[in-house]
């Protein structure tokens, strides 16, 4: 007797199925039995199954964003309803829910492909025009400013991931979205960590991101690798963009890649030799004569050119000590982490306290750098330039409210 329901009962699992990995794509139990239902006269009807599959995969950017932001189907439906879409197209909530559900399913199916964007380009399951693919990838790897500021410089470990609920609570970003962003950071980090060649290019090639986004990821990877401290209260006023800029400066000037562009980790690790050489700069503060000479040269150069001349003159030795001490300590990994704190504490805060304008800071740092060249007995010009050009641009970038 042919009974369609009977068929599955008949199925006995004889012989071991050799499932290697159950491929679980679906984390949300959105397809629960309690689907949509409506009453129609006395008959109750519920939707058991509802799918729509296009030959060209239909993807609504708005729904994609809601999905990326980690909203549940129900939340997404109510958000969409608030946008007035029902009235605009004269449709019902049912329809909207079905549409949202379809999209969520599609996105969840594409998600594992998005983890390896090169796979998305060569996959056969979804026919997606190239520009839509680019959009999907770009949006998937985009991150929230608030989130990245929480995680920047932290070790991308399981421990950090466990703390994401705190991050979620603090930033108001859904936990799901936080997880996605964290996993993105981690994935990119894992892939490019040990790669040869320039970091930005590696990110771009492997994840098919836009130039801007690739640079941001390079910064995130760089920060995560060196574990720079960015979360301290004093650093809170800094934006991700500030850090990304600084990271870029550091990558370009202080890493191994700045001198040799074909070594492993070239853009991720700071140039050890250079850090060692930085110790030599200590002479600028340890040698009393040189310190005085340096000060007088700077004062001469800046007299009448900055508004806070007196404050500068009075504070010169402290500032100089601060700058040189940062340089000298960079051989310690711990102190590398505190690089930005040190910059803020030793340079930016004292200047701010004396109400230096950014132009004053610029003039001072320029003069300070240049004057060192004229010092007798100072033989570390190359290291000095390499150090100061980064310090200068970082400080100037970070010098704001």
């Amino acid at each position: 007797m042919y009974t369609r329901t009977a068929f599955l009962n008949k199925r006995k699992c004889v012989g071991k199925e050799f499932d290697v990995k159950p491929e679980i794509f679906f984390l949300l139990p959105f397809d629960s039995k309690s689907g949509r239902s409506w009453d129609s006269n006395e008959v109750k009807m519920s939707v058991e199954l509802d799918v729509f599959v296009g030959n060209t995969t239909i993807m609504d950017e708005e729904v994609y964003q809601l999905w990326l932001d980690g909203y549940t189907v129900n939340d997404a439906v109510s958000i969409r309803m608030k946008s007035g879409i029902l009235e605009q197209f004269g449709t019902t909530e049912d329809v909207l829910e079905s549409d949202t559900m379809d999209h969520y399913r599609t996105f969840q199916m594409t998600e594992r492909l998005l983890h390896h964007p090169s796979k998305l380009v060569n996959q056969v399951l979804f026919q997606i025009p190239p520009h839509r693919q680019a959009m999907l990838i770009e949006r998937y790897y985009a991150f929230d400013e608030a989130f990245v500021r929480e995680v920047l410089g932290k070790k991308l470990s399981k421990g950090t991931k466990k703390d994401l609920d705190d991050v979620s609570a603090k930033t108001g970003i859904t936990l799901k979205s936080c997880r996605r962003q964290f996993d993105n950071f981690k994935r990119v980090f894992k892939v490019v960590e040990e790669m040869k060649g320039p970091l930005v290019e590696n990110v771009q090639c492997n994840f098919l991101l836009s130039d801007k986004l690739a640079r941001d990821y390079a910064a995130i990877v760089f920060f995560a690798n060196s574990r720079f401290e960015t979360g301290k209260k004093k650093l809170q006023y800094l934006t991700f963009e500030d850090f990304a800029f600084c990271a870029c400066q550091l990558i370009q000037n202080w890493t191994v890649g700045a001198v040799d562009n074909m070594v492993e980790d070239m853009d991720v690790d700071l140039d050890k030799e250079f850090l060692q050489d930085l110790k030599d700069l200590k002479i600028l503060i340890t040698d009393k004569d040189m310190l005085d000479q340096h000060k007088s040269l700077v004062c001469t150069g800046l007299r009448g050119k900055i508004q806070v001349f007196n404050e500068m003159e009075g504070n010169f030795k402290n500032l100089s000590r601060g700058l040189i001490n940062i340089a000298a300590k960079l051989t310690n990994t711990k102190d590398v982490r505190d690089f930005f704190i040190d910059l803020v504490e030793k340079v930016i805060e004292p200047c701010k306290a004396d109400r230096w304008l950014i132009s004053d800071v610029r003039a001072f740092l320029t003069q300070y750098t240049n004057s060192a060249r004229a010092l007798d007995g100072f033989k570390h010009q190359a290291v000095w330039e390499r150090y100061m050009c980064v310090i200068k641009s970082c400080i100037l970038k970070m010098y704001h409210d």
Partner: protein
Amino acid sequence: MPGKLKVKICAGRHLPVMDRASDLTDAFVEVKFSNTTFKTEVYPKSLNPQWNSEWFKFEVDDEDLQDEPLQITVLDHDTYSANDAIGKVYIDIDPLLCSEAATVICGWFPIYDTIHGIRGEINVSVKVDLFNDLNRFRQSSCGVKFFCSTSIPKCYKAVVVHGFVEELVVNEDPEYQWIDRIRTPRASNEARQRLISLMSGELQRKIGLKVLEMGGNAVVGYLQCFDLEGESGLVVRAIGTACTLDKISNTSAAQLPACNSPSKEIKESPPVHPTSHGCRSTHNSPIHTASGSRLTQSFSVSVPTLIYTGMGSGGSAGKDGGHLKTLLRQQTQSALEQREFPFFTLTSFPLGFLIHAGGVVSARSVKLLDRIHNPDEPETRDAWWEEIRQEIKSHAKALGCHAVVGYSESTSICEEVCILSASGTAAVLNPKFLQDGCLDCYSENRLEDTSPPSCGFCHIPYDELNMPFPAHLTYCCNCRRQKVPDVLFTTIDLPIEAAVTGKGCLIQARLCRLKKKAQGEANATAISNLLPFMEYELHTQLMNKLKLRGMNALFGLRIQISVGENMLVGLASATGVYLTALPAPGGIQIAGKTPSDIAYEQHISNIQKKINDTISRNKELYEIHPLEISEEVIGSPIPEPRQRSRLLRSHSESSDEVSELDLSHGKKDAFVLEIDDADAVEDILSLLTDAPLPTGFYSCNTENMPGIHNWTSSIQMFTTVRVFRLNNVNVTNQGLNKCFNDLCENLLKSLYFKLRSMIPCCICHLNFTVAVPEDELIQVAATAVAMTFDKDQSQEILKSNTAPMKAISENEEQLQFPMELSSDSPSVQTFPPSKGTGLLENASPQTIQGTSRATSVDYSSFADRCNSWIELIKLKAQTIRRGSIKTTPSLDKASPLAEGHLRLRSTPSCTDSTVTVVKMTPLSFIPGAKIIKYLGIINMFFIRETTSLREEGGVSGFLHTFIAEVFAMVRAHVAALGGNAVISYIMKECVFMENSNKNQAQCLINVSGDAVILIRESEQEGVPIQTHGSTNQTPQSGGAPVS
């Protein structure tokens, strides 16, 4: 040993991790054909293995080549235990057996596993060396081309349309064999997939043999279905139309003078082709001796069937209406009577093929399934179908027709009960296409109908005095020469030459009927008792809805009745249209039964008002303004009413005069609906619940959307499936109906919402398939395509009326046609020469055409000469025109593949993708593109099963993935054949079963279509007159960028 199959396994990619220790896979490949197996080396520790094997050679019979699929299995090598299968690829090598189709299959195929779905891809190359087989008694039919499309394929012309071919093979279902108890679900699924693949191959080969026997070389409108009869077996059956097709070669035509130029092929989107003459008629269908004894063994109920003619009143066809056949009909009859079944699965025809369409004929019968004892002798099933076809044939006869077009067959099975259905459109065909004629004798058609093509098919084929049913006849509003019915229902596509007012729209009638659960014969009887009522109600619904839209004809009518354990579900879909030739439909009048009650009166008049409002709103929406337009049409120079031969018709003239007075629109009798009980009120209200189409949307279930011609190139094909559960067991018919109606409406609403970014657009070929998979479940599935069109142009065209444009295209169409006409004998009467010249002076193409086509029995030999002279002039004009259009024959040069890549590169893409973009459509054309080659039929059957339903996203997630996988596999196969599109794509079967408690589900999907190579129309020269514009070309070739 007439063939050598060569297979090379190149590489794999994206393979799954099979060894968890290393996170890698040691993959190798088994290549199996028939009983021979080859293996590649193991490529160790890689997810992207490069086997680069030698060419594996199989020496096989061509019979096997046709039947067997090439089976490629990818495995993971395991030193200590059995090798694990990763997945399989079945490749149908049939396209390689036909010289005009593909020459090599080469590409990345998704590796498919029935439990895990797609698991990576494998790159395979396949070639076939065929040796000529001179054996006359061969079992193979290599070289016969198969087309799913129900019109003559674009780059061919039909030389002869032979007629109906059918075949059926049965086997035991592996799922129900004893061995299934001890094998894994995977093994069972694979056995089933392989068996169906094998049976499909066998079926196709057998049909091919029949075609060869008939002297044909192709099957058009090939429709293969399978019936899962459960314990009683598995039936794979197919029907089609045998034809002799000639390839229209672009190069040769450019050199040849006029008559065979293909340039029109480029221009015409809708499939109208010059064709065919005579036909060598042998047996179209084999004689299956239906042994009566067998038949009686199984229980069978034949259902009295309605004949839909649109006459409002159904009723079994009475007498044979052909007592007073015209000479014409007698002639054709004789040509067709030699055929057992003068059926055609085509839905659109070469110009002049269809003379009259009589109405829909359908037959259903309820059968009890019995185990098929001997698979080699599938007589029972054959006999069943034979019976149904006979019935259809007699219905057609009753309508005064000798043929059935747009013919299709279907089944619905529940437990051991099976409903067999067949339907088609009774028609009178042009004898010219059906006579034994030879190509060389250049001759005039002596038996032409007198009606212009824009309305001729609407004219009644039956005799007015001997009508098979009561009908209201009037003179044709277009030519005013012959009678037409007030409403016309057909299963075919709207003929391209038909004169239409306004736009068409999808009309659905939906119906649920409860049925008591029963077993065996009682069940079958109950069902067969219900069927006529359902048909009647569906028919009434269709009629009401048609009137409500102010339309007068239905095309593409498909009525599906599905049986479940406790209910029957009926769904009729059709495309409504206002045929200019038919009289304007009257409104709907509501009549109450008890006029005494004032409140009741009030209520009635309210409803009446609502209905009237709806009608006028609909007329606005579909741009039906018949008065103005009919004026234009009629105003165009129509030849004066000629001295028609009244020999046969004179006796009915008196009544004609009366009806002629009735021609004024709007004064027609209204369709009266009587409200006599609550049911009727309910029915009428439900009429009004059909939600209006959102602005910018149109929909139809046919190939052509009446009233829209200027398609832009953006298309989006989709499949949607919904399953609903009825939670309340104690339901009434009405509640059930309302529910079903709601769910269909909801599904439509969803589609409109999803596709909103494509506005203005039309959803074409929107055919719902309903099934009742379980007690309280209703499954609705649809595959359709949304196509955008140019709004401004459409309005313009509407204003200026479609007539001139259409006429020109018709004219072009005609070109080949006169050259091939076979004039046999001069006729009786004389034709004043002045008329001929007058017509020429008028120079309206339509007029010329009208006359030239209107050569009728009554014309003299002089008229014949005159006509051929007109044609000659026309030919010359055409040559000149064509000469100016065609400059260089550079059509075929660009390989579409290369072109595809080029296109990909030009778009801003992040990485060069290796995946070819493949367009899909259920229609036989893609707007803005020209089909330059047919690569063969795609006919694929997949089973997917899961034991981790929840993890895969529940039933919806499971099916969503599966449908996406099916699409992916179809696209991959097409791309491997060198194609870039699938046309006439349909999902013939989607059987879904689940057991949520066990976390299991299983689904079977069967799809088919024609793989083709397309090139964009803008890339060719000479597209002066276009029915579907190719503006707004998007850079993507992969359908619409829809957000």
